């Protein structure tokens, strides 16, 4: 593939990845949040396939397809099923309102750019220059995790962090070795399953999945 097409497509993919992450902060409808997460998974898969095409690496293209199946297909499917079973549609009251959240996201993006400088300096290719995008999504994921109160929102926060780390791995080094990538994907899938089962138990024990209800244990 020519350099002329590669760089804009890479930037487009990373842009979509970032946008989907930030828009999670904007929506309060849990189903829409899951949709955005699936969209982000697709953007991530597209970036990996693009890197594979650019490096003429068939294995990387195959890994990219695998990433897409897991992160745009399987994980969103699991979350949709959990949502349908619960009948809870909305993030009730995030601790920080939407407008402030988006401003925080902008601040987090600047922080990510600052932190990523040593990484870019080591090897300033078009791909590593997109690393701040991944780190922004990582920080947004943390923000979702601490400010949202529904169990499913926390799961989304965790998975955003995970998407961001996978993106960093592919942008810096075209991915970790295959055996590690497989192990990590399996761990993430199982962690999501465990959290889903725990959500069901939480609903049975507490009558809902509002995390503010979790206050049985203290010193």
């Amino acid at each position, binding site marked *: 593939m020519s350099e002329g097409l590669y760089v804009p497509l890479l930037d487009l993919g990373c842009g979509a990845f970032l946008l989907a992450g930030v828009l999670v902060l904007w929506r309060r409808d849990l189903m829409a949040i899951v949709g955005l997460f699936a969209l982000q998974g697709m953007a991530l898969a597209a970036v990996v396939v693009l890197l594979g095409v650019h490096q003429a690496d068939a294995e990387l293209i195959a890994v990219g397809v695998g990433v897409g199946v897991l992160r745009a297909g399987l994980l969103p499917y699991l979350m949709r099923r959990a949502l349908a079973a619960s009948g809870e549609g909305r993030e009730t009251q995030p601790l920080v309102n939407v407008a402030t959240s988006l401003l925080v996201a902008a601040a987090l993006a600047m922080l990510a750019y600052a932190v990523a400088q040593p990484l870019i300096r080591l090897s300033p290719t078009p791909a590593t220059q997109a690393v701040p995008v991944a780190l922004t999504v*990582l920080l947004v994921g*943390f923000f979702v995790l601490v400010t949202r109160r529904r169990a499913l929102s926390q799961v989304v926060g965790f998975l955003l962090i995970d998407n961001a780390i996978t993106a960093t791995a592919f942008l810096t080094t075209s991915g*970790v070795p295959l055996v590690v990538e497989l192990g990590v994907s399996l761990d993430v899938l199982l*962690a999501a399953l465990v959290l889903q089962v725990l959500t069901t138990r939480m609903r049975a024990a507490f009558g809902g999945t509002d995390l503010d209800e979790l206050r049985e244990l203290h010193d």
Partner: protein
Amino acid sequence: MTPMTLMTWLAAAPIGIPALAACGYALLGWNRVTAWFGAAAAILLLASAIALAATGPGEVAWGLLRADSLSVFMLIVIGAVAVPAMLAGPSYLAAEVARGHTGPRATRRYGVLTQGFIAAMALAVLASNLGVMWVAVEATTILTAFLVGFRKTRQATEAAWKYVVICSVGIALAFLGIVVTHYAALHAHVPAAYALDGATLAAHAAGLDGGVMRIAAVLLVLGFGTKAGLAPMHAWLPDAHSQAPAPVSALMSGVLLSVAFYAILRVKVITDAALGQTAMRVLLVAAGLASLAVAAALLLAQRDYKRMLAYSSIEHMGLLALAAAIGGRLATAALLLHVLGHGLGKSALFLSSGQISQAVGSTRVDAVRGLATRAPIVAATFAAGLVAIVGLPPFSLFASELGIVRAGFAAGLGWVMAAGLLLMLIIVGAMGRHGRRMLLGTGPAQAGAEATPVARAPVFAMLAGLGACAILGVTLGPLAPVLRAAVTIAGGTP
């Protein structure tokens, strides 16, 4: 492919045997016979670890496993804690079933998950690839989630949720650290196939980019530190360790925390060579003192004895962090001895606390008065464990704590050590007071006779563990060469 040598079999056994036992539970369920599979697997694991120590270290199998002395030492710790924990399992679960707290499906799951958990820990310490080590450490979180939530009560569900969310997110940061290290390695011309191999990275560490490795060091300490229960990332630990069934608490507190700390030791060898000792030292001193302070503050007015034991684990992880920060041969040897001593002492304490809570029906300190007269055998193991864990002679924790403090003063960390000693003194006082309240005094009138007959197997195992802990306080015996070699690998220059 090369033929499987004895070495390969021995190194694969600690992972394979518990995995086989897990399959056995999945197929046959939990009954009077299969209940002892776990104990048999643990004994075989310990035996293969000792055999590995005898045959000497070596590179093995598929380029993914390496049984060096540090790995073998950690395997011995895993075995030494798993044996009493698994011996206590059958009687603990029998009592739970008798009270109607659990059923056949849950006991089968308990068998599968505990064995899978032990196999994952063995993989974590044997993996030569940092990525595989990470996968195994995260697998322990997933496998223990339903063990923490075993009772399905509100408290257990809450503890399990916090445990999975905090540990998975924390450990994700460690993975980012590994990704960043991989990036630095590929640009330092480390061969791609070995770019995540711990020993290869340590050998090439001087060529790794400083700015990138600094980011990696922070991420790795934060990530594995979360799993090791270091403050301020410890919030999940008291909940999870107090809610899990006693044998699982013993494994989590006695050895899983140390396995996570082992990961820090492995990456510290690389970052020390790349960045010098100061970078890690600052992080570890901060985390170590914070852990001691948190433990001291929350132990003073603690009302729940399982939570007391959990905070004591935070204290000991803090001590390990200080020992790692000091570095050098004496501190590293003391660190490893402390890992073993803490495993033996803390597992005895958690197992006897399980027997106490099943007899008394509560985990409140106030509910357990006059244990020494009500249940003398359990009281004796609990008291001996308490003496061991607060670091009094003749137990090995006294020797290792002394070693850490001496090394700290010698390395010019006098103020840190003084602060640490003060906090440890507070902790000894607090735990001594709670222990005295539980053991002495007169019990409630109705509890004249011993409530439940004490199962013999776990008591013997606990006494053996505490005996070993006491002997280690005097002499290392045949462990000395393994420990010496492990210290060299973990960064103590000979």
